[in-house]
């Protein structure tokens, strides 16, 4: 409980500073390259094209879903994945990357994951806008289900910010952990519902298990908005699984914060 209060105090102390730091984190990532901001869009575009090509053209799978072309179905689920992928790796590396704030001056450690998360969220907003635009151009106008977007975005933001606090602290102590995260990112991706509809899996155990992966829930949440046109309360099991994982990571992050906050500046 005390840790929670300290984390909140640290955030209050920095206040608006967090957004400025997020902005400078963003600028730093993209300014150094010649194409600059375009990279933020090129990467996702290439990714979606490759998967669409492999599944639709190559394997001749990828039938239209609920009357939507397969590529739109892909995009709806991939949209949050780009943020989540950046946060899986970038979150784990966030404290190490911002070492200069920790080892050379007084700076509240718990704020680092927050501003890193915000900086990725800004990109997510741009991608979201583009995604909506493409849906509109394809003739699918926004409807009442779009109201769920903030809900799923908030879940995603909270979960991955908390993940970044936990993973960032642990990675700061040991590079092993950061490498571990890097090497299982691909596994986490394929064991989630980004590429397929988890509800269609026949094996009941596997179906339930995959729902404990928050990426499944967020990804399928965005598809509920854009494709399936369902409300989040229609699948309470899914949300329940999400909150179980969420709680586990809150506890892990608090443990890491309590245990490592004072140790990190000495080790980095």
């Amino acid at each position, binding site marked *: 409980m005390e840790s929670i209060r300290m984390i909140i105090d640290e955030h209050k102390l920095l206040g608006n*500073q967090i957004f*400025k730091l997020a902005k*400078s984190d963003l600028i*730093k990532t993209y*300014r*150094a390259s010649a194409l600059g901001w375009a990279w933020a869009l090129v990467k996702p575009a290439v990714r979606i094209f490759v998967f669409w090509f492999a599944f639709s053209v190559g394997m001749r799978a990828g039938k239209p879903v609920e009357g939507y072309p397969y590529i739109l179905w892909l995009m709806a689920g991939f949209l949050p994945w780009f943020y989540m992928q950046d946060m899986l790796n970038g979150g784990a590396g966030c404290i190490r990357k911002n070492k*200069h*704030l*920790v*080892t*050379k*001056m*007084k*700076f509240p450690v718990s704020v680092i994951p927050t501003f890193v998360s915000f900086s990725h969220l800004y990109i997510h907003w741009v991608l979201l806008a583009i995604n909506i635009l493409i849906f509109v151009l394809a003739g699918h106008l926004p409807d009442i289900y779009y109201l769920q977007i903030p809900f799923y975005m908030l879940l995603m933001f909270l979960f991955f910010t908390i993940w970044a606090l936990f993973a960032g602290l*642990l990675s700061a*102590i*040991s*590079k*092993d*952990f950061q490498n571990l995260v890097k090497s299982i990112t691909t596994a986490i991706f394929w064991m989630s519902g980004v590429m397929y509809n988890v509800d269609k899996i026949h094996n009941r155990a596997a179906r339930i298990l995959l729902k404990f992966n928050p990426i499944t829930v967020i990804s399928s949440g965005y598809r509920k908005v854009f494709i399936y046109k369902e409300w989040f309360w229609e699948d309470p099991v899914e949300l329940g699984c999400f909150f179980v994982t969420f709680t586990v990571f809150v506890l892990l992050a608090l443990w890491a914060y309590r*245990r*490592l906050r*004072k140790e990190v*500046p*000495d*080790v980095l």
Partner: protein
Amino acid sequence: MATEKDVVIRFDHVTKQYKLYKNDKARFRGLFFKNIPYKVNKASNDLCFTIRKGDAVSFIGRNGAGKSTILKMITGVTYPTSGTVEVNGKISALLELSAGFDSNFTGRENIHLKCELMGFTKEEIEQMEPGIIEFADIGDYIDQPLRSYSSGMKARLGFAICVSVKPDILIIDEALSVGDRRFRKKCTQRVREIMASEDVTLLFVTHSLDAAMDFCKRGIVLEKGTILFDGDIDEAIAFYDARN
């Protein structure tokens, strides 16, 4: 006799231990298991002292005596293992040449970044900016990314910011020993100005005993994390010289 109110820094039985594991892997395992062996390095050992407003204190000692650890605990970068550190007032610290700088940003952006982190508003920073740039005197490089700076230039910028923010406590760690002679002279003069005109406390770490004698009235001699001598600067230096 100064009153309690004048106490700027108080160390109360402060001990700082660093755990030394065999490697990072052992450190990681040490998080989960109690039986991973490690050595303990006491960088500070049961330190007790108070520093009052307007004091100018020099920490003297060999490499590894625990000088920087003390400064780091005062600035709040690192935490004591046991005991309490009490600090009252705004600190401006020059712990390392590029403290708080981000090498991907330009000098000008770094001025803003660092001052923002110190809690200044945009208007205040814009007010200070010309003075900082003038003092740093690095010409067109101010709009170049910091990674293209020489270490001297970084130090100049860092120093310029630290002396421009009107601190209550100014901490200088070896910083005066970088830069060319002209810049060093400028720095020395500026520190003197600050000390004379304002109610500023100066903490000074250097291996140049002349500089220490120049600025400070009080000297604390450290060895292996323990205070051996605390008193008048001349006596402190004599004491230190006698041991080395």
